[in-house]
């Protein structure tokens, strides 16, 4: 038990150091633009189909499921705005982030883990390339930038899914549906939801890189790194989400 607790603290300490190093290296010159854009592309390319499908289904299903309840209160006209608010504030960010945790954090964990195990990271270091700057900084920045963009995309796809769901029983043009949604949308619905997605992205990249970079030797540790990355990243998403809700509640 004490060993277990000690491990948790040790890991937390290591991780904090890893994070501090990120900010230190970020400020040093020679930013690897090419690797950064390659990573951004990879993040988008790997997750876009999944996010499209899940986003669409979420919007559709949510609309269909909510209709009977709203109908009971005679508030069917609230359906578009209610569904899109839940999507924008909560569902799209969390689902998108979870998909990225499953797809991106594990991918980064496995990739860096195998590079570590096969001495590719050492090889980089002896070629006078700072592997932290080249591999870690670019990946963390890529996820921090891309996850919010993907969330915004998921918002749109989800709302469109809601539109399709609405029209199973109702009859509304796409234009009217969207203007109805936008009319009820406030700054406070959007702003905190977008801010938290940057943190989701940051932690997905950070945890993936940390687990990969610290893979011990041996091929088995590559699988472990990938697996731990998914678990830790998913967990961190829920924790950040909870903190974000509390903070918004406190300040606004």
């Amino acid at each position: 038990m004490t060993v277990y607790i000690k491990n948790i603290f040790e890991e937390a300490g290591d991780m904090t150091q890893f994070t501090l190093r990120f900010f230190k290296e970020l400020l040093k010159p020679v930013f690897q633009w090419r690797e950064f854009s390659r990573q951004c592309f990879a993040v988008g390319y790997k997750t876009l189909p999944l996010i499209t499908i899940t986003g669409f289904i979420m919007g559709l299903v949510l609309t269909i499921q909510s209709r009977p309840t709203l109908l009971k209160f005679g508030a069917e006209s609230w359906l578009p705005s209610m569904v899109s608010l839940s999507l924008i504030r909560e569902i799209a960010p969390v689902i998108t982030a979870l998909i990225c945790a499953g797809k991106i954090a594990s991918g980064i964990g496995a990739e860096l883990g195998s590079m570590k195990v096969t001495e590719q990271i050492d090889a980089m270091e002896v070629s006078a390339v700072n592997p932290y700057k080249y591999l870690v900084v670019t990946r963390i920045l890529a996820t921090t930038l891309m996850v919010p963009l993907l969330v915004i995309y998921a918002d749109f796809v989800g709302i469109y899914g809601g539109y399709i769901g609405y029209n199973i029983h109702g009859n509304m043009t796409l234009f009217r549906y969207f203007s109805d949604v936008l009319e009820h949308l406030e700054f406070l619905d959007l702003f905190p939801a977008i801010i938290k997605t940057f943190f989701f992205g940051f932690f997905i990249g950070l945890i993936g890189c940390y687990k990969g970079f610290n893979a011990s030797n041996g091929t088995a540790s590559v699988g472990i790194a990938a697996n731990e990355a998914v678990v830790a990243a998913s967990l961190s998403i829920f924790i950040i989400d909870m903190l974000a809700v509390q903070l918004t509640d406190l300040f606004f």
Partner: protein
Amino acid sequence: METQPVIVIKDLYKTFGENEVLKGINLSVNKGENLVILGRSGSGKSVTIKCLVGLVKADKGEIKIFDEEVSALNDDDLNNMRVNIGFMFQNGALYDSMSVRQNLKFALKHHTRNLAEPEIESKIMEALENVGLAESIDKMPSELSGGMKKRIALARAIIIKPKIILYDEPTSGLDTITSREISELILSVQEKYKASSIIITHDMACAKTTGNRILILNEGEITAEGSYEELEKSKDEWVHSFFI
């Protein structure tokens, strides 16, 4: 010619947990010299050269390259020093997300900035022709055999024309003919670039061809030193056993 050492290691100690790997290594490599290190598996040969480039932090001891203490360098100075060192890893350590061309280009581009594209291309071709693998330029590492990976790793280590080259078993896993070619390549690199090298090997033919001087490492200590001919005639049974 006055011989001046480019690499000096004094009293190097390294322990991994309970495992005392290096127990006071002393060695030096003179300018333009090829030093061969022999030793049984697990005797600490790879660890020694990893300490040399700062990949492994030694517990105790002095490591000087070009008269500079490696452990005292900050990150930038360490990188400035590494630019002059070619390192061939025992298992190749090719970047497996990159093709052969990109592997070599990566080493080159981060070594000398602002190289023109045609110049890069011709250097890559030259390096690949040296190891006889020009036709594999667009292959991915996963498509190469073990020996081919080794030769690409060698090409990647020498493409930057380093002043110091560290070879970790350059000929292991290769057939005798290719081994001989690689040994000759190492010799010609020594002559062409006036490079100083450490060559770790189990291959006595390679040691004989390439080595100006040979060290034998046994359980973290250097137990014998001399030219190939001297050691071959050694009365010491243990030293002699390497040459049978």
